[in-house]
């Protein structure tokens, strides 16, 4: 069976700065993988490389076995690769419902239509409302996104990604900036995602990571430091060193060397 997402030997430089080093990563169908690592490890860069916001200096990205390294961001999205952003990227001046309808419209090619009234297709509106209902956002459907509390906006962010009906979903710190009193809502949603979707989640909260992920990839200085099950990662002394900074310097040096081994 081909993997839902496969990243092979991915590199990216910004001038002399090597932000992604020989990264290999595989998401099987239905995978639940967490991507962790200290600040500046290149986690978001990796997401940007996978989704096509950035082009890699070398390496390949495969979606369901097809090489998509050269395809545009939009085409990747239409092929079933969805993401959420670390900082909300929403249509703030539009209603919550319009945000979701927009997403469905692009997915189904509805938005190519210049003549039919936008509200004429009941099925699209109903599907959008279904998505909102599953995230308990129906009561906010007609509010402008910018009027919503931040926690609710994070939910809209996820609702949009789900409305794309993705095969692969990349979640970039879904609960970032949300007060802990509200974050459980988001994490419940993440925990109950469709088991068919392959999910990669970037998260700093280790409780969330260990609760959600079946596999964990640790990224340090742009390279894969190690991968494994939550238990393996939890007991890994080097990972603890990187995170707790006991001996961060040697650990990160080691990461540089290891990157090439993994490549």
């Amino acid at each position, binding site marked *: 069976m081909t993997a839902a997402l496969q990243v092979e030997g991915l590199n990216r430089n910004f001038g002399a700065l090597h932000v992604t080093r020989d990264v290999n990563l595989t998401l099987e169908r239905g995978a639940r993988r967490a991507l962790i690592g200290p600040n500046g490890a290149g986690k978001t860069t990796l997401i940007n490389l996978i989704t096509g916001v950035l082009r890699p200096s070398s390496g390949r990205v495969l979606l369901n076995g097809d090489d998509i390294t050269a395809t545009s961001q939009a085409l990747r999205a239409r092929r079933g690769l969805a993401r959420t952003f670390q900082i909300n990227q929403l249509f703030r001046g539009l209603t919550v419902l319009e945000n979701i309808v927009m997403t469905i419209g692009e997915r189904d090619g509805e938005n*190519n239509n210049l003549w039919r009234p936008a509200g004429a297709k009941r099925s699209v509106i109903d599907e959008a409302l279904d998505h909102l209902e599953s995230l308990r956002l129906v009561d906010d459907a*007609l509010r402008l996104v910018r009027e919503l509390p931040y926690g609710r906006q994070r939910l809209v962010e996820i609702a949009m990604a789900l409305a794309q009906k993705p095969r692969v979903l990349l979640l970039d710190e879904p609960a970032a900036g949300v007060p802990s009193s509200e974050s459980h809502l988001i994490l419940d949603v993440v925990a109950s995602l469709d088991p068919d979707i392959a999910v990669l989640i970037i998260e700093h909260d280790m409780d969330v990571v260990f609760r959600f992920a079946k596999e964990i990839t640790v990224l340090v200085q742009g390279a894969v430091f190690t991968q494994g099950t939550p238990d393996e990662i939890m007991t890994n002394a080097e990972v603890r060193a990187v995170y707790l900074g006991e001996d961060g310097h040697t650990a990160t040096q080691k990461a540089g060397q290891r990157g090439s081994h993994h490549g």
Partner: protein
Amino acid sequence: MAVSDTMTAPAKPAASREQAANFLIKRHRFHAAEALPWLFAIAVYFIFPDRMTFGSQVLVMIMFALSLDLILGYAGIVTLGHAAFFGIGAYTVGLGAAKLGWTEPISGLFAAAIVAGLVGFITGWFLLRYRGLTLLMLTLATAIMLQEAGNLRSDISGGYDGLPGLTFDPLFGKFDYDLYGHTYYIYALVALAVVFYVVRRIVYSPFGAALTGIRENVRRMHAIGSPVHRRLVTVYTIAAAIAGVAGALFTQTNAYVTLTVFDFDNSAKVMVMLILGGTGRLYGAFLGAAVYMILEDHLSKMSPTFWQFGIGLLLVLAVLFARRGLMGLIEDAGRYIAKRRQP
């Protein structure tokens, strides 16, 4: 828009679902108040029969501003070269009549739309990869280059002296051009109504929604799979075609055209009109163009040297106190009244 009045507390999920769905389903329907500008335009025909030539010019500028609203107000494309397409339309019918003997007016409008749309498509394809200041400069340069090309071949274009004394056939072979411009006022009004209907359909279509999405957050549009460049080129081409029709009407109503149609002044003026009236609101183009033209007309009679001061003052006031233009003020007033009625 109607967001605030649909926000009453929901009772059941099914009820709030229905309420939310209705907001989208009913939004594109015509509102009774939308008849006002049209009734007003018809009233003008009967009240000011001796100002019909000026009236036609206002209608032309409304159409021009409407085309800019499509790209600036909805898609968020900033351009200082929109006069390029107005000018191309103006010269399409001008040269057609002067050099080719193509004097049938209505087919001239279609020809202008096609030529201007074609140029819009080609320039848009290249320029719309850029945004912001870069795009501003490139669109400006496009209009200047066209103007200079016309200047270079003034043997064809007539240069800044223009193509004078153009004649056009009577409309449908029956209704001739009269000294007071009555026929052309009706003609321009009908053309504007047709164009407005098209623009309104586009704005309320899923494509129109996607344009708003590009304006609101282009990063998100890419992420949800929107072919952003294609959408922008499409709307730019349509707007160029409409600006071309406005330019063609301009030539036909004036019976002459000079290279000044390509002026930076013309590009800037239409933008000022739109901002004054309110961007992204359809009727902002009506209000802005009408108020601007009437003020210009009165002020320039009062003070031929300083009339621009009045326009400038108005713009400063609009930017300071009515950021969403005159239409924004009207919307606020409407909301205020609605609130007071049902506390």
